[in-house]
């Protein structure tokens, strides 16, 4: 029996049975696999870490796309950093009112590979006429981008140890702030606080230096083992995280979204953090 054992933590590891290998790309520098698991469907792993599975990707992508877009309320220009599998694009492009989507992916091969072997992730979204696809390093792109041109930025990065490291840097958050229009918001993938509390605090420090309102919201994504995962939140408008449920309901209806995880109630509740996370962010209990 073939198995994939995750290599994130020394003392604990989750293990998936590999029922069929669809794609494997291994070089001296990285090892990417897409395989089938009886329960999870297609699973993509990179360097021993689960990136996405067909069974639970909706939780992650719905929460990272709809929360900032519906909180903003009138987002027209959205920037996605990373997200080569196309699922973030899929969720963003469901918002009809959005006029332009710029997606910056560092590796063109990831997109081709995902179109072929993870087709349900993008579900045709790469043909959206509003999409401008840029193959570039995310950090370089934000450095070179004009100020104030995006309403929402979504950083759908890999793990902070590896190629995604720069997307957790203070410079990256600063550049994102600069290219956001007034009233804009950025959301980032920030790991599982139960195991990665230091990274959470680090984002608080680094992102907090650039945004008047920095916080996190959360959702439990089963294959990101360890309980809730945190999404970083940065905006100069503290009101964006306080939008009332009625307003969210209205925006949700107007957008005509059909979702499996996201609801306006979940949206509101997701900003409530467990006491131990809040304490750590407030400088206690480290």
């Amino acid at each position, binding site marked *: 029996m073939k198995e994939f054992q995750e*290599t994130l933590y020394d003392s604990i*590891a989750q293990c998936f049975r590999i029922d069929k290998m669809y794609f494997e790309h*291994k070089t001296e520098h990285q090892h990417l696999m897409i395989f089938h698991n009886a329960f999870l469907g297609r699973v993509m792993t990179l360097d*021993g870490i689960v990136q996405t599975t067909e069974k639970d990707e909706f939780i992650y992508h719905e929460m990272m796309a709809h929360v900032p877009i519906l909180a903003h309320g009138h987002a027209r220009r959205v920037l996605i950093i990373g997200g080569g599998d196309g699922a973030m694009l899929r969720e963003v492009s469901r918002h009809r009112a959005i006029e332009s989507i710029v997606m910056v992916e560092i590796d063109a091969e990831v997109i081709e590979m995902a179109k072929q072997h993870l087709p349900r992730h993008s579900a045709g979204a790469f043909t959206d006429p509003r999409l401008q696809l840029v193959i570039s390093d995310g950090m370089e792109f934000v450095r070179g981008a004009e100020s104030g041109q995006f309403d929402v930025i979504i950083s759908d990065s890999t793990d902070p140890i590896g190629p995604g490291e720069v997307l957790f840097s203070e410079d990256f958050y600063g550049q994102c702030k600069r290219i956001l229009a007034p009233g804009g918001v950025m959301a980032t993938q920030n790991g599982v606080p139960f195991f990665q509390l230091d990274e959470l605090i680090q984002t608080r420090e680094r992102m907090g230096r650039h945004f008047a309102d920095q916080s996190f919201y959360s959702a439990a994504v089963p294959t990101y083992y360890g309980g809730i995962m945190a999404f970083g939140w940065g905006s100069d408008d503290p009101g964006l995280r306080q939008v009332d449920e009625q307003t969210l309901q209205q925006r949700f209806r107007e957008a005509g979204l059909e979702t499996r995880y996201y609801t306006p109630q979940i949206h509101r509740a997701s900003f409530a953090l467990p006491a131990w996370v809040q304490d750590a962010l407030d400088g206690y209990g480290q």
Partner: protein
Amino acid sequence: MSGEAGYRPGPRPVRYGASPEERQFYESLVAEHGSPLLVVRRSRIEAQYRLLQRQLPGVALYYAIKALPHASVIETLAALGCHFDVASEGELELLRPLRISGRRTIHTHPVKKPEHIKAALRGGSTTFVVDNLEEMNKLLPFRHRIGVLLRVSFRGDSVAVDLSRKFGCAPEQVPELARAATAQGIHIRGLSFHVGSQSARPDSHVAAVEQCASLIAAVNADNDNPMSTLDIGGGFPVDYDGQGLDADRWFRPLREALQRLPEDLSVIAEPGRFLVAPAVTAIATVTGRARRGDCQWYYLDDGVYGSYSGQLFDHMRYPLQVFNDDPQRQPSVLAGPTCDSIDIIAEDVPMPELGEGDLVIGHMMGAYTAATSTRFNSLNAARIITID
């Protein structure tokens, strides 16, 4: 580097003559693959692995890749269920194309650049070895992901290569370092030691196991996150002298010491030499001859800058074999192919008349041979082929 007492290489064993099958075996390999060659025998690696498993039951074996960082060796051991001791990014990169998970590795270099740590984590290697506070601090940003082994230094007095001088904290520092680690939120998973290499007797291993057991018990007594792992390193000897090595006699005291450990302590070892030394044979060819004074010189196509580099770096003398069994022998020099006068494999070694094209076989040449060979004089390293 050399231990000042205990192990000394004995007189170099030389075998004169070969059975027709043996001769045919070496000559056909050279005919097919050229010379010089290093011949890896999978069956011998497997035999050594099984022997060590029998001698140290219950001990998880982590092959020290540095001894012979070759894909066929790694693959053979991986198929047997072996784990791997990696000490650099390059060693970890050898595993990836072979689909060997980082979970089967520990990273054992006590001194690391921060980028080494990140590369190791990307490769799935999550257990690290340190021996001081400064190195521990480098692990702080990753503290929630990793396990740490604290390397302790015990001086072995019967080893050929002393490994206790360059790395390892003093045993009396262990409680203090463990406390400091706990205070910073780093978990010390256990202790590791390396008494040295090619140990003539197991006494140093046994003493180190016993001292580590006391240290672990002392630290665990007032720590609610107990140490759980003891890494006994390597250093298990192989028979370079042709005297015969009674493995059971060597390992029994160590095995008994390990049996006295608490049951919930996991024991791991990092054998390198033991697994590969007997599995590799070097084949070199006489390329030239000269008479200098009273001595007959033979120039070979491999030498101490190549596969025989272990004679310098590793202080070993490999058993040699020539096919000519003529009892008429004269003092000879076997020299390597480079221009340097240090490039001499053997001096004053009695040799029968050898002709150009004759083969010289080096036995027990798996560990720290190809691993440390150089490209001096732009000479190619011996080709490594794998059989069995």
